[in-house]
């Protein structure tokens, strides 16, 4: 009756072992350290290097079908793979190309577009970023205003996109552009793809308050995009975006990542023993850790219940919004507790990538970074308020 038993077949146990060994043997140590420091701003080169290692093994683009070069894994295999990659401190997949654009192109693209776009993602040669949000279109995405005017066989782009993650390391952007203003705001939006090296594109870094460079504002000044780089029909981009965003919600619980973070915290408390002079505080800290562990287990089971429906229908309904809400809440709490455990060590704003032992360096240097950085997760990808609105409306009928 435990829904997690499905991952305990002999085949999946063997696969789990295989992934575990593979990661241990093939994940470069310098990359592993950055991931174990909870960094979400991995350099382009690191991401590509790891992607190509996975590609060589045949595991890149784990969700892709074989016909497009993916491993053609079952959902159970994907689940096990994702878990083990996380527990082994491997980087997250490059979500914009592999997780979002790829499957969307498979669903909406022309044959030519599939041939042109998918191999670059599969091989890790072309990095993508997403141009959805704008300065005045965040949670209210449909109110976007960045303009694409049709001029013959081109669109001419003007305006800007905001919060573009990895815009500074990406080669191409896919995005939503306003091609018509006359109807409802969800209408007149077109889905375009563009080379960031085109004339008129400017990528301006936006530093986060803890100092990392992850997001950007991307400006368009009469940028010409060929009509064949449009996905789907003109003015009909909203449905494509909705499809694409429903893919994104899959996995946003970050259960596996949080399991890894919690394991790091436990190792830190055990190995560094910051409470050796304060048994009562060790006790209360261990209580908090146990509470988070329990919360995470409840979320883990809920995710499996939602993702693996017994009737075989593996699509995720709007109830999946709660995975994102609880997932980010728990993750944020783990990082908060980790920082508090570091105590005075947490004051320093320094991060030593060369340190051999991540648990030890966290204690000294990097415990506050994830606490600050991960505030973003409750804001982006549909803020937790928006997710609650979705549940209220689509699940509860309010």
């Amino acid at each position, binding site marked *: *009756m435990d829904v997690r038993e499905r991952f305990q077949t002999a085949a999946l146990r063997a696969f789990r072992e295989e992934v575990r060994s593979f990661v241990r043997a093939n994940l470069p140590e310098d990359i592993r350290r950055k991931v174990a420091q909870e960094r979400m701003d991995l350099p382009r080169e690191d991401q590509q290097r790891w992607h190509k290692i996975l590609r060589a093994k045949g595991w890149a683009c784990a969700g892709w079908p074989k016909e497009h070069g993916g491993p053609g894994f079952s959902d159970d295999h994907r689940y096990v793979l994702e878990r083990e990659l996380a527990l082994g401190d491997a980087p997250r997949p490059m979500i914009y190309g592999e997780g979002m654009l790829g499957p969307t192109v498979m669903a909406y693209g022309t044959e030519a577009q599939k041939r042109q776009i998918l191999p670059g993602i599969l091989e890790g040669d072309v990095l993508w970023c997403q141009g959805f949000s704008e300065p005045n279109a965040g949670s209210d995405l449909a109110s976007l205003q960045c303009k694409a005017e049709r001029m013959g066989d081109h669109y001419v782009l003007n305006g800007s996109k905001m919060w573009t993650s990895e815009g500074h390391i990406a080669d191409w952007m896919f995005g939503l552009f306003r091609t018509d203003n006359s109807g409802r705001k969800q209408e007149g939006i077109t889905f375009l793809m563009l080379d960031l090296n085109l004339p008129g594109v400017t990528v301006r870094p936006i530093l986060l308050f803890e100092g990392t460079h992850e997001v950007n504002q991307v400006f368009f000044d009469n940028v010409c995009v060929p009509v064949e780089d449009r996905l789907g029909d003109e003015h009909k981009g909203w449905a494509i975006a909705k499809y694409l965003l429903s893919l994104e919600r899959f996995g946003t619980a970050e259960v596996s990542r949080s399991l890894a973070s919690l394991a790091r915290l436990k190792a830190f408390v055990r190995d560094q023993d910051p409470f050796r002079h304060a048994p009562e505080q060790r006790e209360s800290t261990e209580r908090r850790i146990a509470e988070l562990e329990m919360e995470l287990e409840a979320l883990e*089971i809920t995710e499996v219940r939602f993702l693996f429906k017994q009737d075989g229908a593996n699509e995720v309904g709007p109830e999946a919004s709660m995975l994102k*809400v609880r997932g980010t809440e728990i993750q944020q709490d783990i990082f908060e507790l980790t920082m508090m455990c570091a105590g005075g060590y947490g004051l320093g704003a320094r991060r030593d990538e060369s340190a051999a032992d991540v648990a030890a360096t966290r204690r000294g240097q990097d415990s506050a970074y994830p606490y600050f950085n991960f505030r973003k997760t409750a804001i982006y990808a549909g803020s937790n308020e928006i997710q609650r609105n979705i549940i209220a409306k689509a699940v509860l*009928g309010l």
Partner: protein
Amino acid sequence: MLPSLTDEQRLLKESLERFRQQDYAFEKRKTLLARLGAADDPVWAQLAELGWLAATLPEEHGGLGGSHADLALLMEQFGRGLVTSPFVPTVVLGGTILRLAGSAAQQSTILPAVAEGTTRLALAYLEPPGHPDPACVATRARREGDGFVISGEKLAVLYGNVADHLLVSARTSGEVGDGHGISMFLVPADAPGLAVNAYRTHDSGWAADLRLERVQVSADSLVGAMDSGLETLEAALDAGTAAICAEAVGAMWHLHDMTLDYIKMRKQFGATIGSFQAIQHRMVDMYMKCQLAQSMALAGLAALDSSDPIARRRAVSATKVQIGRAARHVGEEAIQLHGGIAMTDDYAAGHYFKRLTMIRLMFGDEDYHLRRYRHSTAD
């Protein structure tokens, strides 16, 4: 609540739903409660007749040999219907102990009677000052002649006043807190020296405090091996805990549904209160707590099948913590979002809230189980 149902389970579920919506409808409940625990308690008779007392008992003793999934179904529907009966002490607690450790004679005389509804059981393990650790036993059983003489005090024995037999934990060696030295006894309710102080519980059930003064029992009233009763007792308490957690999930979903219906209908300031965003977001939080609690209730019940007692303890304790916290949140919010109407005795919400609160207090609260979870490790 279950991820999937067999055809038989679907039928069971349908009959449970019919029972709670018709025979045990809230408007009838007060009348039925007046006869709760009586010899001719009509609800108990019906539970027997429908085969639900037998459902999870072993086939060789008059049961239907159902799984923990069947138990989950029963308990969830009992929770949704606020069905109040000695089911858990009789079938789950008593049934588990006899199934695991009872002698052939004990099993063959008592279990069929339980399945038929002619015998009710209760488990007397808790003692003053009320610490839920079953190793905290001060009650003593001393060998005298070919039997035992038991003396001590037991607290809050669920349905202890309506049971025909009491399963009593007593110390045959060791001191309070020791894991070794606890034995289980099957004590007839009419044993001389047994004083029963019965009272209604807040959820309209029954409980009793017991005083045992030199209660004499025969040698064959020992259940399982001498001094080694704790393992059985823990297994039974874990089964009982998982069962009431499943019940709590049913009760929470019912409160969730009631509250959702109410806020869609209730108007204030010219609008339904369910249109206010603050209310909506709180309703979403209730929904999420119910889902998470349901997930853990499944894990708790599944763990009863585990051959590893440490894994079972951890899973059951994690479940009790999650369910207890969710029960508090969902119960309090259901009252608050309803407003005054839910404070009244005529409205069902308060009674569900009381049941959820009693479940929190039963078999150890969140604090106790958080500690038990942390300390249940192999290393």
